[in-house]
């Protein structure tokens, strides 16, 4: 059986669009009879990743690969890159500007939240080139 592929472009100036892509993925996963816990974990990872792309990288793309027993999200951007990944993974660490924080984002919980809700997280990042997050969620059901 072949993998199912979904693709989204995230506009870097549109906070609202992040919600739309993740709700589309949720709709598909529900149709595919994934258990609700899995749907929720994928939605959280996807939403946090998209918000990161909007805040830091002026948008990017998301590829979603769905198989019977695995869901893989690949979020690519051509933003500033992450200089110190270990530091970025710490809860509360944030480089977001004051303006972003006042909007309720940038609490330094994005990547830690993705880690918590995924089964595998791989971050490839190069300063000045961009960041690619590869997230795998294995269905619990």
């Amino acid at each position, binding site marked *: 059986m072949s993998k199912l592929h979904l693709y989204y472009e995230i506009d870097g100036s549109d906070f609202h669009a992040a919600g739309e892509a993740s709700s589309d993925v949720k709709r598909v996963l*529900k149709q595919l*009879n994934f258990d609700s816990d899995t749907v929720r974990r994928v939605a959280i990872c996807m939403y946090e990743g998209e918000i990161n792309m909007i805040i830091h990288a002026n948008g990017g793309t998301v590829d979603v690969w769905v198989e019977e027993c695995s869901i893989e999200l690949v979020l690519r951007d051509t933003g500033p890159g992450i200089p110190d990944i270990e530091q970025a993974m710490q809860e509360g660490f944030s480089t977001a500007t004051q303006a972003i924080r006042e909007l309720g984002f940038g609490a330094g919980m994005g990547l830690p939240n993705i880690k918590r809700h995924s089964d595998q997280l791989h971050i490839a990042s190069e300063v000045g080139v961009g960041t690619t997050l590869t997230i795998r969620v294995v269905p619990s059901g």
Partner: protein
Amino acid sequence: MQHAVTLMKEKCKGCTTCIKQCPTEAIRVRRGRATIIDERCIDCGQCIRVCPHNAKKAVYDPLTRLADFQYTVALPAPSLYGQFHNLEDINQVLGGLLNIGFDHVYEVAKGAEMLSAITRHVLAEESFEAPLISSACPAVVRLIRTRFPKMVGNLARHIAPMELAAIHAREEAAERTGLLPEQIGIFFITPCPAKVTAIHAPGHLHHRVIDGAFSMAEVYKKLLSHMRREDVPDLLQSGMAGVGWAVSGGESSSLSLEQHLSVDGIEHVIQVLEEVEDGKLSHVQFLELGACNQGCVGGCLTVENPYVAKARIRQLMKGMPVSQNTLPPEHLQQERFLSDKLFEANSVWQLAEDRADALERYQKISALLAELPGLDCGSCGTPCCRALAEDVVQGFASEDDCIFRVRERMQSITASRNADDYLPPPFRKGAEKDE
């Protein structure tokens, strides 16, 4: 299951208004008539509001059912109080209900105040899955069960205000009259069809606790000629807290909570549930969700527009006591105020039980969708091209239902490859040609 929202076949023209407005994509046009997919319908009443031919209606009990019982009690929803122009005193409405033939009145606002006491207790003392979601709106409960199954566990486990009121009303009436409980008829005056369905087929209770539901619009009409301004009996037993349940925000404000959210209108409710699912609203303790605009005053069996009714409710609340009803502490945890059954998730959106099968179907849907025009015109009788692709793969429709596909095929027989040759003028993409 029986739905309160139904179609009057003779009035339906088979237009596409309702299929495109239905929030759960529960309607299709087949053989020139709308048909409702029972499993998907949540009885929100949206199609009743938008049908230009008044072909959708809510089924409710006829007032003649009052004659079936030796003693009858009216349970007026608080939204009823907002329907009247220049109403000075809610007692005029309550007295009017006695004048039109009820033996007694028990306000649902009283049940609401008792339920608020229970919910305050749950929020303060019991463990629950946050956010706790109000289960007072039956359309929202059905929406969650079918579309957000993960959140079924967040639904408050207590029965609705009308049910709490009914239980008390029947007990008190039996004591007062010496009649058997079944000789007493308890009737809810409903602002919406979702509550009619919830009364006649309560998914969460073993037995019905309310005997029937009368339409607010119908009762309103009768009341107009039976309400008096003089010798008004003193029947009002609720306060601001209970009456406020008629409008969105009323339930939440009766809970004295910091972190609550009140949402009204089915589209907004869906958006917020999506956000809860994404983990975005984890700080919210209590979610009040109502399917209708502005809350129950926006129900499609009401008479007045929801904004006017809301303003009137606010006006009536001025000068009322905060709350007149509570439950003794030992009653707050009583099992009889809990639903008999947990709400069950009933996902109606999955393409197949088996995931591999579902994946295969999804891929067929995507492939077919890519070939459909993407105009979402509704001419095929489904709400959008994606829904048609789903219906075709699921065996409920044919790709030839798409008028553009058929034209395209005819055109390919005549060997033209230009889509503008077969699309009607509004859909042509090329430059205007001189005709």
